[in-house]
């Protein structure tokens, strides 16, 4: 019998914690941000989502966004996030491929 003892290669990580936002009681009358990261096809998904939300929830309003920096994918800066947060009640995004 033999034993091989080695050192663990996996690094510990810095942990972050963000409290999720409170959800909306209803989508009726809400202003919804539609965030597209500019990857192909995401705009079509948001088009259809907007149409469905309009159809099912009275008084919804919409604002379209993309990030102010980036290339294949456009990213949201802190300033973008501040602006969006000030203008809408909720956001539907296409950023996760």
């Amino acid at each position, binding site marked *: *019998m*033999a*034993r*091989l*003892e*080695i*050192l*663990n*290669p*996996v*690094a*510990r*990580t810095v942990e*972050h914690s*963000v*409290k*999720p*936002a*409170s*959800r*909306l*009681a*209803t*989508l009726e009358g809400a202003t*919804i941000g539609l965030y597209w990261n*500019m*990857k*192909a*096809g*995401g*705009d*079509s*998904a948001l088009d*259809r*989502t907007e149409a*469905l*939300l309009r159809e*099912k929830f009275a008084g919804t309003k919409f604002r379209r966004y*993309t990030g102010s*920096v*980036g*290339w*294949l994918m*456009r*990213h*949201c*800066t*802190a300033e973008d*996030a*501040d602006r*969006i*947060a000030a203008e809408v*009640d*909720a*956001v*539907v995004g*296409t*950023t*996760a*491929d």
Partner: protein
Amino acid sequence: MVELERRGIPTVLFTAQTFVHDAHRSAASFGLAGLPLAVVPLPFTNQTPADIHGMAERAFDQVRAGLTRPVEAPKAVERPPLDERLRYDGDDLLDAWGRMQADFLVRGWADGFPLVPPTERAVGALLRSTRRGPGDVIATLEPGFGIATVEKLAINAVMAGCGPEHLPLLIAAVRCLAEPKMYIRNKAMSTGPHAPLVLVNGPKGRAASLNSGMCALGPGAPSASNTVLGRAVRLTMMNVGHTYVGVSDMDTIGSPLKYSLCCAENEAESPWEPYHVTRGFAPDASTITVHFVYGICELHDFRSTTPEHLVQVFATAANNVAQVGTGLWLIGRRADPRSKTEEKEHNTLFVCPEHAQIFAKAGWGRREIQAALYRAARLPFRTMILNKEPKAMEVAHPELAWLADHPDLPVPIVEDPTCFDIAVVGAAAGRGAYFYGAGEPVTMPVED
């Protein structure tokens, strides 16, 4: 989206099934493991509008729920085991080693090749090669925000087959990876095959027997030092940066370049100042440069005897619109929104010594090659825009909208001439290499 949640705005993300694990892991690394998703079966890319609309319709209930139902408690996230020592028993040491290999593969900690066991004695030998202490933190490495202590780097270096001479080089490489401008989060997690090309300059590379000549990129005994250092960078990205395939590395096809891609510049046979001098370092400094690259194309030319002719041949390698970086400047710059860094898309050329001499004899240096290549490497706008999102170009360069009316106009494949990085590598005979790059190279000094 996590930043919007932080600001009190509920969000929901469309996510293709294949990226669900990635999305959860990414959100968790930013502190919000339970970020709501609207899961669709396929990525929207390459789908027709009708198919995309269908997917959006079928995911609509998830959109509604994501914005209105309380977010569930964060899902459990894999954490590194707290046990800093691992033990494997077997009939003999070879058997125990086999069990270690099998376990590391199951855990995702291995690159697929057999690993050298990181015993305390082997790791200790590496730790004695740096003035830094084992607990010194070199960086926090994304995408997993892993704490890159000197000891963890040494452990992964041993696993790769490195000796003590490699640890200071690996430390410099990790500093390159962690530089904000590197935006490694994007390159590590992307669906594209981003491989870290590691270029070593200076006396410490020579002391570590890094090969710059024949078959510098391997395989073979002359490049053994190159191979293990490049491999250590990959294992460090995995086990320190937590870049794990299918979890936080979503590369759709992979690349053999990602196992190990490392060499030294052939400074002895270069007619020019060493590459690192062009990056602002002293000629006698030792440096590591890391440039993430997607792929490689040979620069073969046995016939040319003039710089102009060589550049025409080189330009044919650059003019490859199927390569993502080609003409990418038309739709913006790679950018990390947190650090507000931006990168131009660079490509690296390894010019072989014979070709370098042709340029030098005609009085050409890097700057002349860059300028000539910038003029020669162009494609018609209609070709360049084939695989790019036109709306992204409208946002990035509204002033260039007129190009649509001149589809045959040749457009440069990079943003400016400095986007071609040139080093001399290889042996006799007219064969170099062109690397299709991802963003900009980063260079760091090797510490004593």
